[in-house]
């Protein structure tokens, strides 16, 4: 099942395995607004209205539950379906789209009513990733483990019954109404999924940014997770949910995060409001149950890796060297900060926000208000030349000489010119070896930041008496260098990431060797083991034909070289494979340990029969039949009692800019979505905006790479897709007089762009709530630089985000399209391009959810020097 992904186009070699599965009899289902190259080879293509996936997936949940198609033994033992939820809980079904605990003055949920019945409701396990700036009290917490369960799944307040009720209205008729999918087609998909799941068979889901780039993105994925748990498809070969990520090491840059809210290995950045000292920080994050009970070992080892001998027990391991968060400091907020002149300097490293981020007009405005900008890339991308090539410069609205930003362009080294590891979409760390020196002054980021760090240490040397400079003074920064340009040795950095015992700098075996007493240092606990015994495990290249299909000796996967997460679930509660056909990991009674084709993702010596005592803490609370070891209760969470901001169960909300009213609830949009009400970021009406009668979805093509920095400069790729275009159905073409091969102008309140027209039957009008919904497809690869050019689709995009992860909504928004090139391109920056109407006339929120306090969800407009520009 591929949904929210165009796998054949965006991950063609990954799709090799889908085609192999198809040859072996698998049914390939592609759910997508467009008929793409993935649909072309799928068995079933399901055209869907972009932004309605939770209705579709919720419909499948209902089908599974109502028809008793779930894998009962798996559900009862491995998920929290039997758990009984607090009496105070009330569902979105009862409140027209809001869950219990809505706090009107703060415009957010008090999530305590979502907790298991009888459990101390302090937020814990799972909260650490998404929680930012959330207040709480450090207390000696009880484990988040269900106190009351009903294995018969009959209790009216057990998760299973709540689930059943929550999705009771997600009927095939509703799917047809909301998604534009004929009931017959929907039922065919639901049945195919159920038929192919259970003891003997498994089904897999693949998704990509087609799911994440929505204001309800996290909940899209959650809906699929519920399906996979109900069908028993998690932790089993051929099952799971595959996130298809778009950049060589986008997984790595999440694990070792260049992300504001995380420290390496998904440890949270300290929050100013409540992480006052080390004890509090550890107390709030060290979970009383589950694997996160090891939290202090990982954090203290990280501090030892970063601050070396300076980090001691007496000074709390330099805890107060760390900066703190006071809210959401993610990319979109930074951009509005920049646009408001609050940021001096910006580093852009192998990314092209002037093309690839949402509302790129606003992105470029941000760049104009910096004091200095550093761009590191292969060529002069749009972000490097925003001061002379941007659309607003071409239109004469902004003059180059008025832009005060100082710009440094540093040529970057390519992957063939540096040693290092990428982490692929399956958590596999693979080493690429340096083949040649980079040309001229091109350098790796490793070299650049190492040497910038050396310079800063020197610059601050005279000011080390000030405590605020101590982190710079004490930062361990003594990597050995090598080669003609004296680059730091990447393996030495990997050694630090892997971790070592402090006394002899010997690499540790893995994260189970880490200690909380300062005797070990480790840069990223989940990567611990990648350099065990001083061997670069990520550089292993044993051919696949010399090993089994799991290929454990090719490179290295985190954690502990486990290729399939939570694989304990591939065996039944007694530890026997669910079926011979699907055997993967099992309990070996003779050897008294877990064994299998892969490294077991479980405590190896813990027998299936193990039951923790009442006093157990940390990983001792993980029972022998609790496969989901990172969860506080070892169970797969169908219902999320803590950790999500916008609800314990996925609920359908319309995109920020939709064509229709929410068919299920009075609450139109995600009540916690992040909005930025500013003059330079207008919004359309919630739905039925007469000015914007069509829906856009954006995407990429096989022939280009994201914002184009690695493809638009290459002849071999550029000739294959040489110009910006839009895809429209013949019906829409007729309605708007669009000619195949001609030009069209597409507009939103934020911008107006031109594109060539591709009229195609691959785009189909859908019938939704009695009206015809036309969708327009826009690839977003092009802009003003490179061999092949065109307007940037992201100029049009609404600047709004998911509350859990602050990811933009690029996959569904409203727009207008007209034939021809509408003269000189005109942007929102040069005044309204469409008649202004009150955007609030059609409400996105129920009255109780309308009040949004300052900075609770994004930021309000601020007066800027440029006014509306």
């Amino acid at each position, binding site marked *: 099942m591929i949904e929210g992904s165009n796998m054949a186009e965006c991950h063609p070699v990954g799709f090799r395995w889908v085609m192999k599965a198809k040859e072996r009899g698998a049914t390939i289902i592609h759910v997508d607004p467009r008929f793409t190259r993935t649909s072309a080879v799928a068995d079933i293509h399901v055209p869907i209205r972009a932004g309605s996936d939770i209705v579709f997936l919720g419909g499948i949940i209902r089908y599974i539950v109502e028809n008793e198609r779930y894998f009962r033994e798996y559900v009862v033992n491995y998920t929290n379906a039997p758990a009984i939820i607090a009496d105070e809980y009330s569902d979105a079904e009862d409140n027209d789209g809001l869950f219990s605990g809505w706090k009107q003055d703060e415009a957010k949920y008090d999530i305590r009513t979502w907790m298991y019945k009888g459990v101390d409701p302090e937020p814990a396990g799972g909260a650490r990733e998404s929680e930012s700036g959330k207040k709480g009290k450090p207390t000696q917490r009880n484990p988040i483990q269900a106190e009351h369960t009903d294995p018969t799944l009959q209790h009216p307040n057990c998760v299973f019954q709540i689930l059943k009720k929550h999705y009771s209205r997600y009927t095939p008729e509703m799917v047809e109404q909301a998604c534009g999918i004929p009931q017959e087609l929907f039922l065919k998909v639901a049945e195919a999924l159920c038929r192919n799941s259970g003891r003997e068979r498994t089904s897999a889901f693949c998704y990509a940014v087609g799911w994440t780039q929505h204001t309800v993105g996290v909940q899209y994925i959650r809906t699929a997770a519920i399906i996979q748990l109900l069908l028993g498809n998690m932790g089993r070969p051929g099952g799971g949910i595959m996130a298809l990520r778009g950049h060589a090491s986008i*997984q790595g840059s999440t694990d070792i995060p*260049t*992300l504001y809210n995380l420290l390496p290995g998904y440890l949270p950045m300290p929050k100013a409001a409540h992480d006052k000292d080390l004890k509090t920080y550890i107390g709030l994050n060290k979970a009383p149950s589950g694997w996160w009970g090891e939290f202090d070992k990982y954090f203290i080892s990280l501090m030892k890796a970063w601050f070396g001998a300076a980090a001691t027990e007496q000074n709390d391991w330099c805890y107060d060297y760390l900066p703190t968060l006071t809210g959401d400091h993610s990319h979109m907020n930074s951009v509005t900060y920049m646009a408001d002149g609050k940021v001096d300097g910006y580093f852009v490293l192998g990314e092209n926000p002037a093309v690839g981020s949402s509302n790129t007009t606003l992105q470029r405005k941000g760049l104009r208000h910096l004091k200095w900008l550093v761009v590191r890339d292969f060529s002069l991308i749009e972000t490097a030349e925003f001061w002379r090539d941007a659309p607003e410069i071409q239109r004469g609205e902004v003059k180059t000489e008025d832009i005060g930003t100082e710009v440094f362009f540093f040529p970057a080294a390519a992957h063939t010119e540096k040693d290092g590891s990428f982490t692929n979409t399956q958590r596999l760390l693979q080493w690429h070896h340096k083949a040649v020196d980079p040309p001229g002054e091109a350098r790796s980021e490793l070299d650049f930041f190492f040497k910038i760090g050396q310079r800063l240490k020197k610059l601050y040397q005279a000011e080390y008496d000030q405590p605020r400079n101590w982190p710079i003074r004490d930062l361990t920064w003594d990597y050995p260098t090598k080669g003609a340009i004296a680059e730091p040795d990447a393996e030495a950095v990997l050694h630090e990431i892997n971790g070592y015992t402090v006394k002899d700098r010997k690499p540790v075996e893995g994260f189970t060797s880490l200690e909380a007493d300062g005797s070990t240092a480790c840069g990223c606990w989940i990567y611990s083991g990648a350099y065990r015994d001083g061997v670069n495990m990520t550089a292993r290249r044993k051919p696949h034909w010399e090993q089994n299909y799991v290929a454990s000796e090719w490179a290295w996967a985190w954690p502990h070289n486990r290729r399939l997460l939570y694989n304990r679930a591939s065996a039944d509660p007694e530890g026997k494979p669910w079926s011979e056909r699907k055997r993967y990991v099992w309990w070996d009674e003779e050897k008294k340990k877990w064994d299998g084709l892969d490294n077991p993702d479980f405590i190896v010596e813990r027998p299936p029969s193990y039951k923790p005592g009442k006093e157990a803490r940390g990983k001792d609370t993980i029972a022998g039949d609790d496969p989901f070891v990172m969860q506080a209760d070892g169970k797969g969470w169908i219902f999320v009692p803590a950790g999500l901001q916008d609800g314990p169960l996925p609920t359908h909300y319309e995109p920020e800019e939709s064509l229709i009213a929410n068919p299920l609830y009075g609450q139109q949009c995600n009540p916690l979505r992040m909005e930025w009400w500013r003059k330079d970021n207008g919004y359309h009406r919630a739905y039925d905006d007469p000015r914007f009668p069509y829906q856009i979805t954006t995407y990429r093509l096989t022939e280009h790479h994201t914002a184009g920095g690695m493809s638009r400069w290459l002849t071999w790729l550029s000739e294959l897709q040489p110009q910006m275009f839009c895809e429209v159905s013949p019906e829409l073409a007729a309605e708007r007089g669009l000619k195949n091969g001609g030009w069209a102008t597409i507009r939103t309140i934020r911008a107006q762009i031109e594109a060539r027209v591709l009229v195609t039957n691959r785009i189909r009008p859908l019938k939704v709530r009695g009206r015809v919904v036309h969708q327009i497809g826009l690839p977003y690869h092009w802009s003003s630089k490179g061999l092949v050019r065109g307007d940037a689709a992201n100029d049009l995009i609404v600047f709004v985000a998911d509350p859990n992860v602050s990811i933009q909504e690029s996959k569904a928004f409203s727009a207008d399209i007209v034939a021809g090139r509408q003269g000189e391109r005109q942007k929102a920056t040069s005044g309204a391009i469409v008649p202004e109407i009150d955007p609030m006339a059609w409400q996105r929120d129920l009255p109780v959810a309308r009040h949004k306090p300052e900075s609770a969800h994004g930021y309000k407009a601020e007066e800027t020097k440029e006014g509306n520009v």
Partner: protein
Amino acid sequence: MIVVEMARRAADSDHKSGNGYAGRGLFEWPVLRQLRDGDLFGLGGSAASQRTRELAPRTRSADRVVGSVCPYCAVGCGQLVYLKNERIIDIEGDPASPISNGNLCPKGAATFQLVTGSHRESRVLYRRPHGKEWERIPLEQAMDMVAERMKKARDEHWEVKNDKGEPLRRTMSMASLGGATLDNEENYLIKKLFTALGVVQVENQARI
């Protein structure tokens, strides 16, 4: 007729390629080669030029082959980088990879052009405030300038506490975007350095 035609072809071929058929003796005379090889119509090997006969893949001359990974999407296909005289002469899929079995998609197949193409800038460029053109400045100087600006931004906008008295220990005057296209080791140094400097607005494509 055939004989005449072959002689003409041979002459033509000699003339064009400078192969010097005449110098290789009577047995290399095309007619005889044709008869010897059974290539009666002269449409096969007997018409092969010396270049053709010596044809070999350029990878044969490689001094060494380096294992690598495709830099585009996150599938992580294996690549083999062929080098001759310290120059990349070819980049191919690595058949040994359990992920890709030697395959590459069009982007992966274009990696050779990505890393060796003339589109790549190899010099540091500097645009002064309000400037209309790029200027060249040396790498070392540019790095000095960036480090100085980082220090200045940090020092001028250091936040000790917020108005509630909560500790901040940071600066909001700098931000960074990027990492998804970089190595783990690079992301590690970036996060480590920025965190030590008190820079919290560190983000990458994973947020988008």
